[in-house]
């Protein structure tokens, strides 16, 4: 079990997706990329982001960045550390977070929502491996 | 007579304004600062700017820079437009006010404030006019 956004977290995440998630069944063979911007990361109130890229349902890229230089992505979600934490702890669904404006979305809502389900699968997998958060 | 935005231009204008413009009569003792951004400067289509600062009608700062920001100083207001517009203004083909009202110059900051010092600024422009004769074509 690892800490949110840590090196290990990424590694676990990658492996988990590759092993556990079927590109066709779970990921619907989608090709897309997602940039998640995380604001107010404790303890120093910094900004971080993770970039995730799927090709035909297969994980192509998954990395974490510090600071506010961001990578181009099909769509971008933005929110504070707390909401990501809630999502990863299963307190709130990604779609719900979007509809409640806890996550702001850049890009087409339709496109975003189309991959909500597979994304949930991914979150699910990350949920199982993430137990530690900054307080 | 010198070339717009050249170092000489910068220096000579400074002296000229200090010499020829009376802080009270011409510049009405205004205290303000103006950042003028010049886009599409030939030949390399670059962006330049000059920053101009008046205190109680005295010129306290006048610097030419590249890029669209003036390092360090926050100007009271910022006007931006393309090289051609500035050329027309300095050639006396168009007044600064008209340039503003016609959207040739874009203004950041209160139009009210800007127009209140338009007169004194015209004074400055006129003096710049006197010494500027050469432009990139």
């Amino acid at each position: 079990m690892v800490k949110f956004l840590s090196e290990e977290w990424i590694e676990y995440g990658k492996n988990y997706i590759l092993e556990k998630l079927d590109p066709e069944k779970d990921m619907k063979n989608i090709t897309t990329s997602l940039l998640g911007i995380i604001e107010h990361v404790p303890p120093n109130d910094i900004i971080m982001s993770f970039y995730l890229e799927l090709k035909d349902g297969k994980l192509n890229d998954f990395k974490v960045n510090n600071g506010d230089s961001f990578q181009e992505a099909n769509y971008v979600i933005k929110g504070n550390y707390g909401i990501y934490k809630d999502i990863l702890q299963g307190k709130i669904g990604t779609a719900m977070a979007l509809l409640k404006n806890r996550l702001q979305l850049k890009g087409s809502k339709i496109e975003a929502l189309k991959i909500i389900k597979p994304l949930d699968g991914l979150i699910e997998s990350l949920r199982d491996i993430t137990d530690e958060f900054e307080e | 007579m010198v070339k717009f935005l050249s170092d000489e231009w910068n220096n000579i204008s400074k002296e000229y304004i200090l010499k020829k413009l009376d802080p009270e009569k011409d510049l009405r003792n205004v205290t303000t600062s103006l950042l003028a951004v010049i886009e599409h400067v030939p030949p390399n289509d670059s962006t330049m700017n000059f920053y101009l600062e008046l205190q109680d009608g005295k010129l306290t700062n006048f610097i030419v820079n590249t890029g669209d920001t003036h390092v360090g100083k926050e100007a009271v207001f910022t006007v931006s437009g393309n090289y051609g517009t500035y050329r027309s203004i300095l050639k006396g083909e168009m007044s600064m006010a008209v340039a503003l009202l016609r959207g040739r110059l874009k203004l950041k900051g209160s139009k009210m404030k800007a127009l209140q010092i338009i007169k004194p600024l015209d004074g400055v422009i006129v003096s710049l006019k006197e010494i500027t004769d050469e432009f990139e074509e």
Partner: protein
Amino acid sequence: MSLEKVETMQKISLEDALEIAKKGSHCGMCRFDFLGTGICPSGKKYGFLAYWPQGRMQIFKMLMSGKVKPSEKLIEIANSCTLCGICDKQCNFATQLRPEKVAKALKDYTNNLDKSEYQEVIEDDVIKGLREIVGEKWATNDPVIISSYVQTIIHPDSELNFYVVMPENAEEISKIIKFANQHNIPFMPRSGGTLLSCATPTVLSKAICLDHGIIIDLLRLKKLEVDVKSCTATVGAGITAFELQKEAHKHKLRANLAEAGAHVCSNIASTGITSTWQNRYGWAADNYIDVTIVDDKGTIRNNSDMEIKNPYTTERGFTDITLSPPGIITESTVKLHHIADDEDVILVPFEHLKDALSMIIKLAQRNVGVSLIVLSRKYLSEFLCPTNQIAKDFEYICKNYLKLNYVVDVIGNKDDKKIVEEMAECTIDKSMIKTLILGAPKLASLKNSEFLKVLSEEKNPCKAIFAGPMRKHLEKGLDASPEQIAKVFDADLQDFFKKVYSRPEMTDIIWLHSFRILPSRLMRQRLFFAQAGMIWSADQDKILRLVDMLSKVCDKYKLEHMLGFILPMDDGKYVFFEYDYYYNHNDPDATKRVSQALIETTEKCLLMGDILMVLNYLFKGLYRKEHVLYPIPKGISDEDLALFRELIVSILGDEFKW
């Protein structure tokens, strides 16, 4: 027909032609088909203003004054005219001119030129670049073509260092603008050109015309689609008010529009569309669902885009003057409105403005009627009468015999009509208006008649003549018929105008309110400048004081002047007023006085407060009226006035002193 041919074949001296050309008022009525004649074939084919009757008249003036030298294109321009006579018919309806004679003279003039007199036009890099964007045919730097744009976007005194480009869509416009910025060349869009032609002779000219650079003529953006379901129409920047209305009416829908010749998109941007329908149909942003705009960086955006800067608000205050649109509207999705089956019209005559005003405001607050306006007798006469002279006599009769100085002019359904009739002492109905239109010449001829003398002794002449016992006599006496009215036109056009006036719509006042082909008559053979604004309507005495002030200033400057109209807006919370100065735009002294009157009245209005002057709402038509009209402008202080004067001087130049 044969008679017509003969007429036009007769030679005409350059002097005579020049006389005609000078009277051209650039009303643009020759660029769309409002009489069912079809439109000028050469204009339609070549597009540039130079190929339209209006352009040929302008070119002729320029050639005669030596301001422009012949070029290869001149031959094409002269010869492209087929002498079909359409322009004479259209122009006669509006301003009683014969543009074809000028076209004829132009032909003669060019044919007599010798090759050596033609100047050569070289294609420079800029024109090359523009042609890469729009294609060979649609960009030019030919001085003769450029000269046709003088007075409708180019100041008469400026050199002709311009380019004219006619893009076909927003993408091309975006490219043109980026290209222009790249090369530091100013640019400006041109649509109908009437607004510019009104301002050009005045002090505003230099400020509002393009000093040099690229004229973007939008005539080719011709998209026009009506969506009946959502009651909307998608309208390209090249579409005139008349063309849109025609399309809308096919579906029993109506658009809220300016004068027939004004282009819809540019009109939204410039004044937000001022019409008698605006109390019901709305003003400014109320008029459209969405617009596509190319901004001055060349970026294309819609007002429905989320990531753009707030497109619905503007700075307020008397210093917020804008002399160019916030961008080029290339397309707009405008609202259309249902036309009730039982629409009818009713006019209520008044002697005093006060009474007319209180009625119109009451109707507006209670949302009675679809079209609401107070017209001055001047407007009424100009609209109804086929010629200037007849209009003059008609107005004289209104003033001296009928005591008819104003009419409250209402279009509404039968219920609205009842309401108005109950409020009014006497009214003029649709059939009576038809009688007045067709009988105008006869009525004018009665100017000094016994009949009118008798009438004028009645306690209430209007009542007697429109609703009382004398109505029958009047109707009989006027013997109003297409034949009668046709007689006032040139012999060779009488058959044509008989047919025109036999068409129901030409005497259908509702149709005329929707299609607005009559206002062009205000400009016949001379120009007028309209001082206009919007004034908060709760204090009706103040509105009267305003009108009073406007007339006093005009007297001071010895100008022919008259209130044009007052119409309510924003549920009657405001009224829009237009006050007109008439003058000869070829007389520099007169124009100078117009300018002075313009500035002086603007100042006085600013001091009065509660008024939003034309200078302050120009080019704000894209914004929400709530952000333009509110908070209600307060009267300005003396320091503010000083600031305003400084501003005016820096706009108008030092030749303008107090």
